[in-house]
């Protein structure tokens, strides 16, 4: 119950205001509604070195 309460407080205290604040940038976001022009994006990340592969990110 405590965890759930913390989650909800986090959600409303942090995410909702941020969401509204970020509304201006939403027109550029990948979630913008409406038809979009399809395009391949360049892929930049690689995990082929041991240091990178050890990281969870």
């Amino acid at each position, binding site marked *: 119950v405590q965890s759930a309460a913390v989650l909800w407080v986090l959600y409303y205290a942090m995410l909702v205001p941020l969401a509204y604040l970020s509304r201006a940038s939403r027109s550029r976001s990948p*979630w913008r509604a409406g*038809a979009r*022009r399809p395009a391949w*994006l360049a892929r930049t990340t690689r995990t082929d070195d041991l240091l990178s592969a*050890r990281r*969870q990110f």
Partner: protein
Amino acid sequence: MHVLGVSCYFHDAAAALLRDGVLVAAAEEERFSRVKHDFSFPSRAIAFCLGRAGIPARELDYVAFFEKPLIKFERILQTSLATAPRSAGVFRQAMTGWLLDKLWVKSLLRSTLGVPAERVLFCEHHESHAASAFLCSPFDEAAILTVDGVGEWTTTAVGTGRGNDLRLSEEIRFPHSLGLLYSAFTAFLGFEVNEGEYKVMGMAPYGTPRFVEDVRKVVTIGPDGAFALDLDYFSFHYSPTRTFTPRFERLFGPPRPPGLPFFTESTEFPAYYGDKPGNFRELARENQRYADIAASIQAVTEEMVLAMARHALARAGSSRLCMAGGVALNSVANGRILRETPVTDLYIQPAAGDSGAALGAALHAWHVVLGHPRGFVLDHAGWGAEPDPGAIEDVAAHCGLAVERCASEERLLDRTVDLLQHGAVIGWVQGRFEWGPRALGHRSILADPRRTDAKHVVNTKIKFREPYRPFAPSVPVEHAAEYFELGEPARHLPGRFMLLVAPVRPEARARIPAVTHVDGSARVQTVAAECDSRYYNLISRFGEATGVPVLLNTSFNLRGEPIVSTPQEAFSTFSRSGMDALVLDRTIIVKGPS
């Protein structure tokens, strides 16, 4: 050196173990837990792999996880933020899973396996897919295409594999996803997401693709295969329960209620559906609309996959293609790639979905991260557990049915062919169970494909599955071209894994009616003597006896259950179904008079 690959926490958890770069064992957790599409931490599959290799967990040199959890977590947080407050449900559901389990994968792997932190590696989701497609293929160089629902951010990627290296050069990112587009239609058509996609594919040939232009309204497709969803039609990124919006419903009409039997004027209405409703014609007409929608999304999916395959080939400057990701299990699209693109050679490993990413992560660690040269080709699917002889003997001793222990291979094959010729439906348990979702003659239900009623019999006595779903044929690779338009069957390893749908030759359709789908196609499994000698010999012997070297092959399970693994599970399924005989290695158990 031992490298363990692990995938879990989305769907189809699995483990795969390499010894010096050669696969020792690979299995999906559901085969042990008996929970279909089990996504929990694959502790049983890991234990099996370690047992098969004969090593304790502490002797593992590396453990490779199939994705980067923190990047995925970032995507979920960003999505929740961008779609707040509608995303409250998704946020709550996601946070529970992430805070309790998914963020602590590294700790869990360390504590469970006793492997030091620096030996736990993380490979990006689509790199795992790409590695599973290319690094165990027979090609020195090839184009790579990975397409699925979503990994961290990537939903689709193209790249090149050369030697022991692979590079993904371009991608399409969430929320634009072909896998999620297909899943939205799967849900709309009343099926379970991540489970019912095969049903949509099977339903499609009963429809006419008259909604293709409407499907194009929800997804824009570029000439190079790039695509973008119109998010006005989708809610998968903010709703935990619905994947499409009311606008989607206004375009395609009301969704099909889940759980209702599906039939049209051209499908059967099997007895297990109950009594035929009084308004049968009206319901059949309504279902026909759903079949037309299935045909339309399948047609657009094929068009997109073909365009992406051409793009991947052009970018890589290659005529060879390796594919992975859940969409690579769309065997109709795969068959068209072979027939309609410049591809000369295609490779897809049998567990092309997320379970196969466990293998990919291990291969990526071994070859790309650690720099070892290649040498292993995955050319068969038998990487699971073998039936225990003691368990077979135990089943035989306590089954209370007629049991025959065949002293020779010849006797086993002759007796099984005799049963098949006399119309028996047989459970067939041989060798190590299959890696991936398809039964390929290791844990299969077999029947005579020449019988027009075989499909009906298998459906009504055993599988109780929808009558519009086809059964697959198994054929020795040397005979495949006599029955199916497969070009050079021996050249295409995906055919061994039942990943290609091909037209049945018109002159052969009447000879194998039980495995010829309504559109004249079949999801063929080619069988090679060097990989599955007993199954190959059985089909060949059946061919000698009947003139038709083809068997109907479907997975050894009941509806809603995972494919059987052990002799006990096989006998339990056999007992609860209308199968006539069960073949466990060289032991034959027959119901009724033998």
